[in-house]
């Protein structure tokens, strides 16, 4: 059925795409998945004849989750590799850090960052975010938590942008629904040699539940400390901090923990495909929350190039909406399906492994389901789900 798949045109310039992922540093646990997903999509596409008959050339860099290094890496991608887009930035500070360079050079950015500043600072409409912004997280998780009937909460968060706005939204929601936040929400820094004081402060008023948005490395240490402190109330966090590795690291003590996250449409077709591509088994749990986004980033970018028929980034940016967003188009779940459809002259809507990939007019992803999960017997058990209602 691939009669129309073109062969790579010999001698044509390749299409350059950059991937800038947090392979080390704070995002270290996630970056490699994203990078691998990027590479898989590109390999798949190249094997099937490339885009516009041209080979896709992928250059991957490590942001080290550090904006200082990331800017130089972006510089290299832009000026040496002449990429049309930089995909995969994760931490907001990196996404924002390279933004001036990218905007100046007219390079598309695709990220999974959650800072509310991202749309505001994207003046040229070149940034696409595959992650819900953190206020949305806070609101949704609070909503789910309230359904469990907690009346008093204490909040603390890792000190970064992602968690900062999440806490505000969480608190606002809690108050709006008549429950109480009994502490003055506060932040802690990652990479500390102990978190005892912070935990002490958090549980001081003996709240029914505590909410701690964080990253996995520091959350693991914090959670151990909470457990050791003898706190008997409910701990709530975000699922990115409570993956398999977390559960392995803390063992049985993880039982009873609640965590929420925007989820890939588990059971959806694209997600199943992702698991297969990544060689994972379907456990019914959320796996690779960012790897899935990596797949969707690369897929939508390449589809958009094919759609735009050029590598002019303004045109490609416009085409990204065309291939991902809007009703009444043919739904595709993988890049190859999509390419085929585009070449067949069809209008497509790419539905991804991380979400259905619908963007608002600022390039922020819309359609994300949220799910609240409880750890029981070392396994995630879904307790509540909040489906995105288009």
């Amino acid at each position, binding site marked *: 059925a691939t009669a129309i798949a073109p062969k790579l045109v010999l001698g044509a310039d390749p299409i350059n795409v950059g991937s800038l992922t947090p*392979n*080390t540093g704070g995002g*270290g*646990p996630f970056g*490699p998945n994203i990078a691998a997903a990027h590479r898989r999509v590109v390999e798949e596409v190249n094997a099937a004849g490339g885009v516009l008959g041209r080979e896709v050339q992928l250059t991957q860099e490590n942001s080290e989750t550090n904006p200082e290094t990331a800017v130089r890496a972006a510089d290299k991608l832009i000026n040496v590799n002449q990429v049309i887009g930089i995909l995969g930035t994760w931490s907001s500070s990196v996404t924002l850090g390279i933004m001036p360079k990218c905007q100046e050079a007219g390079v598309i950015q695709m990220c999974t960052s959650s800072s509310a500043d991202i749309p505001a600072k994207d003046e040229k409409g070149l940034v696409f975010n595959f992650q819900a912004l953190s206020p949305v997280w806070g609101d949704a998780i609070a909503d789910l938590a309230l359904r469990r009937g907690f009346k008093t909460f204490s909040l603390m968060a890792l*000190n970064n942008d992602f968690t900062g706005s999440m806490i505000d939204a969480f608190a606002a929601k809690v108050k709006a629904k008549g429950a109480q936040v009994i502490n003055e929400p*506060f*932040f*802690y*820094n990652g*990479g*500390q*040699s*102990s978190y*005892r*004081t*912070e935990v*002490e*402060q958090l549980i001081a008023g003996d709240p029914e539940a505590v909410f701690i948005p964080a990253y*996995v*490395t520091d959350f*693991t*240490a914090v959670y*151990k400390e909470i*457990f*050791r*402190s*003898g706190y008997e109330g409910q701990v709530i966090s975000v699922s990115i901090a409570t993956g398999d*590795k*977390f559960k*392995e*690291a*803390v*063992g*049985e*003590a993880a039982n009873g923990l609640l965590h929420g996250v925007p989820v890939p449409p588990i059971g959806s077709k694209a997600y199943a495909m992702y698991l297969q591509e990544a060689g994972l088994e379907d456990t019914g749990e959320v796996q690779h929350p960012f790897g899935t986004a990596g797949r969707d980033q690369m897929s939508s970018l390449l589809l958009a190039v094919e759609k735009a028929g050029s590598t002019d980034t303004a045109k490609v940016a416009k085409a990204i909406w065309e291939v991902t967003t809007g009703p009444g188009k043919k739904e595709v779940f993988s890049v190859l399906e999509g390419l085929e459809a585009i070449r067949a002259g069809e209008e497509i809507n790419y539905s991804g492994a991380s979400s259905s990939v619908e963007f608002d007019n600022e390039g922020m992803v819309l359609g994300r389901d949220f799910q609240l999960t409880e750890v029981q017997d070392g396994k995630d058990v879904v307790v509540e789900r909040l489906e995105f209602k288009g």
Partner: protein
Amino acid sequence: MGQVLINALVNAALIGPPAVAFSMLFGILRFPNFAIGGYITVGAFAVFAFNVTLGLPLVLATLLGMAVTGALVWLSDEIVFKPMREHSPITLLIVSIALTLILEQGVRLFWGADVRGFDLPLTRPMKFAGMRITVEQVWIIGLALAVASLTHAILRYTRIGKAMRATSDNFMLAQVRGINTGRVIAFTWLYCGALFGLTGTLGGLDLVIEPLLGWNLTIPIFAAAILGGIGSAYGAMLGALLVGIAEELTVLVLPSTYKVGVGFIIIALLLLLRPQGLFGEAQIKK
């Protein structure tokens, strides 16, 4: 308040032994060795490998891990530092930072950046008089005290300990008096390496095993050792206690995000009052 003290004590017990080791290495080799972060990380992963991958009991795994770390730390001297003995302390400092990068990334190369834990269930605390402490923490404190006393006893009463102090004081003269300084230094590395291995275990228990584990402990260790006055085992322990208390008390007055910073300020103030460190002695040259 009592809880604050217990917490500070646990912090101190974690930082203390490596601070003692750092201080000993500084004393004998005359440079601040920032590779301690790398050593601790390696220690934690070595113990992890024995404990989780090979399924040995934690105590045995710890002992083996200490041996492995000791050997590795000694090897790092043979390969990296030994040929550079004569070089300036700051050059060696930079070299040690480069070494810590290599060790950390080496660990990452094999194990990735994921978080890990030992095969030991977390425990709930024992409670008394409104204060809480876990069995693990009691262990950590006990071990730290044991390490301090052992180190002190070695330095003060054993032949090798005296040789260590002499070597650290005046390398050339030590040789002249017949001390095999090469062997003394090797022993020091091995001993300190074992302490870093132990810290790997304790740190992994208290925090979480990951490549940056050691790096996160480095600055408090450095501060404690300097504060205690280089070369003094009890000094380093006391330094650790003060760093611990300083950080704990900060939170009573300032947002906890400033914890690390205030720790530094208190250290600075202490040093202004007693510029030679707590246990260091002022030297007057004539």
